[in-house]
């Protein structure tokens, strides 16, 4: 070793730049053991070749039942560690079998949500330019201000306090990522509604942009729904919270209001903007429901725990169905608040119940008594 390097050092102000060197470190440049081993080999892909979704998702959250040999290195004060399977009453012989049917990862998340955002802004901008809000029939703006506005709270509450904690709690990365995506769908939809409310305040005479708060907090129409949502945010078992939200609440209350009321009632009132907004939220809810169907069907059909899981889910169903049918029932007066009744509450409810019944049957569960009549 010598001090030569110091003498050779160029003056500080002319900083050097690294020079490219030809290394030929490209795939295929040589043959040697594993030189062709070009796929992640620590999991079984669902099909012959792993999808990008699987590659970027599977096993990122380790599991002592798979490759984690030294165990979780931190625990909670009560001794539970990592992603405890005990955080739900459901059991699985292999939690890792669940793959998100929507295959959400970075690229799909931003593409889909950005598309929706752009589409909504376009529709609202066009409506403003065409002065379309002035074509709304009398009374419709009030319905939008009160009830569509109140719905924003539902989406926000479920996104922030059901889906967001659930994505900490499930035992695999595939389940948790799907729940995280569900969370931002809900949160984005809530913001879409409330910011739409803001635009209407600016463009529609007499539109009460603050009415949604009192409607949500005090209007008897909404108190059962609010109670249902608040109870969902208080469930500690992540799978129960997800089940009671996606399997029970969404068809019986969510679809009932979004599709069964807003999307059908709006057009005859001269409103083509609100259905676009609701439709985007409904489509996202359908994605979450696909995930829920996949997950709970897997648990229902589990070779070892299927019977026990069905019993647990049946209890959940029996507990949560009355709450959500009650919430849906209390929404009925909204259907009468529009001038011409193009859509009847009973029809909307029958459709929602039918979809609920299909889902319940698909999961191998029985329709609660009050719904069999």
């Amino acid at each position: 070793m010598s001090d030569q390097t110091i003498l050779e050092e160029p003056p500080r102000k002319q900083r050097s730049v690294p020079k490219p060197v030809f290394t030929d470190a490209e795939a295929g440049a040589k043959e040697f053991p594993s030189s062709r081993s070009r796929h992640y080999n620590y999991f079984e892909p669902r099909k012959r070749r792993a999808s990008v979704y699987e590659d970027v998702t599977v096993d990122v959250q380790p599991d002592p039942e798979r490759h984690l040999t030294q165990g979780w290195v931190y625990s909670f004060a009560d001794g539970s560690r990592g992603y405890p399977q005990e955080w739900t009453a459901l059991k699985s012989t292999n939690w890792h079998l669940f793959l998100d049917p929507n295959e959400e990862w970075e690229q799909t998340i931003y593409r889909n949500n950005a598309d929706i955002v752009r589409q909504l802004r376009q529709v609202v901008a066009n409506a403003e330019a065409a002065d379309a809000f002035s074509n709304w029939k009398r009374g419709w703006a009030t319905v939008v201000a009160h009830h569509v506005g109140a719905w924003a709270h539902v989406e926000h509450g479920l996104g922030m306090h059901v889906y967001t904690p659930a994505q900490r709690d499930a035992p695999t990365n595939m389940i948790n990522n799907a729940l995280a995506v569900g969370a931002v769908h809900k949160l984005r939809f809530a913001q879409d509604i409330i910011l739409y409310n803001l635009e209407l305040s600016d463009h529609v005479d007499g539109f009460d942009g603050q009415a949604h708060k009192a409607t949500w907090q005090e209007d008897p129409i909404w108190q059962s729904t609010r109670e249902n949502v608040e109870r969902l945010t208080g469930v500690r078992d992540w799978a129960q919270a997800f089940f009671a939200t996606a399997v029970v609440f969404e068809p019986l209350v969510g679809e009932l209001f979004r599709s069964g009321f807003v999307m059908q009632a709006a057009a005859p009132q001269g409103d083509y903007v609100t259905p676009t907004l609701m439709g985007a939220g409904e489509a996202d809810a359908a994605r979450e429901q696909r995930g829920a169907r996949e997950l709970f069907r897997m648990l229902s059909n589990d070779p070892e725990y299927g019977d026990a899981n069905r019993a647990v889910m049946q209890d959940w169903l029996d507990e949560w169905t009355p709450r959500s049918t009650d919430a849906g029932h209390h929404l009925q007066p909204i259907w009468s608040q529009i001038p011409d009744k193009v859509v009847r509450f009973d029809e909307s409810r029958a459709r929602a119940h039918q979809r609920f019944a299909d889902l319940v049957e698909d999961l191998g569960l029985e329709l609660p008594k009050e719904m069999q009549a």
Partner: protein
Amino acid sequence: MSRASITKAHNKIQELSWEPTFVEPVDKYPTDYTFEKAPKKDPLKQVLRSYFPMEEEKDNRVFGAMDGAIRGNMFRQVQERWMEWQKLFLSIIPFPEISAARAMPLAINAVPNPEIHNGLAIQMIDEVRHSTIQMNLKRLYMNHYIDPAGFDISEKAFSNCYAGTIGRQFGEGFITGDAITAANVYLTIVAETAFTNVLFVAMPGEAAANGDYLLPTVFHSVQSDESRHISNGYSIILMALADERNRALLERDLRYAWWNNHAVVDAAIGTFIEYGTKDRRPDRDSYAEMWRRWIYDDYYRSYLVPLEKYGLTIPHDLVEEAWNRIWNKGYVHEVAQFFATGWFANYWRIDAMDDTDFEWFEHKYPGWYDKYGKWWERYADLSVKNGHGPIAFENADYEYPHRCWTCMVPCLIREDTVVDEVDGQVRTYCSETCHWTDAVAFRGEYEGRPTPAMGRLSGQREWETRYHGRDVGEIMQELGYVRDDGNTLVPQPHLDLDPKKMWTLDEVRGITLNSPNVLLNEMSPQEREAHIAHYKAGGPAGRPAPEPAGA
């Protein structure tokens, strides 16, 4: 969106939250912190409808760069030495990222401030973005770099290698234990605010110097989300500081979080930047110089110290000691040497330092050669397959180290080693602070007050203890670090891909691995004392102390 309309939109979305009246809020994740009288502090204004298109645009640039790198044959100019360390780094980092996403409800649950909740929820999806974008980058490396072995077993290797376990605490630490300790102090106040600079800014610079311009594209894109996360964390710590009862906990957590981040991140990133590079321009900054700028000046002096005026007790002593370890005690050199000693149990290849490297090290760290030069020459000799075992099992004037129970990096600065019997086991610690972390901080009581929410250190923390008494060939098979011919090892002590020169199971069979901790626990108290005295007298560069005269 204009700033005015973002502000207007931001204010409007605050109308979405409400106080529940039908149920009491459930404490999903425990914390000993209290936020009852905290004044609300606003984080950066964030609205999803401007967020998604903005991020999509950033993504498009990343995907464009990926296409460009493949079409431009980037891998013809990439240094293998650098890429090999990426097998380790990119196996670890997607887990901390996804853990940051998982940590968000811990903070949301603890902090009664809806404005911060919105910011934290956006951070959640940012972190899903980071995790999956990094996995995708690694996938591209696996497909286009000359040696895919090690990338192909990535997440499994992360889960079963001692090095992955060291990295894992930088991730598990975000999601377990006291919610604020984990999701605010450890994750945001220290990991994101201080150490993402070396992770996502300093390291990409080094990647580019080694011919890899994709890593900088991806990681700068990741880093551009970080200011929002830092803002979330800052709002929370200011709220916490408003309550006198939180002060002692904050002081405890800052000491723990600072020291653990230093121990883990400086070990890993320091090694990648100093030993994983072929860029030996004399004016290229050393890791120590980068640390001085990014951590000492930008973080410690510009961010942490100003928090003192809110009553936060800053661990000045530990910041200075971290610097002391890096600059005077050779922390990064000792760690790199240990990784190379352990090459036989890795899933990437490590080549010897050569004369060009020696010169650079001597220039940047005067006195380096006298400490480490001979050992690296020995490493080079023993890297050639020639009837001997890996350097860890040959005479190389190196005493295989004890492991730090807390940070799991070995006790490499021998004189700082602390030994104590904790929870019925004789444990070794790399430093007083790591000892304090286990024995004092992660307990159900702190300075006389109950801390029922505080987590514990758990798990089978010593890799060697798990495999104590086992045959190295068997261990490697069990870990899966064997190439597709069923015999050649994934790790190599050199970069030569000539199959005849590559090490195989044959060279490691018949070697028994021992756990220094098991042996330590088997000793009598007197033997132990003598052993530890001797151990602490050793170093630098792991050199055993001379035997006392007459022994």
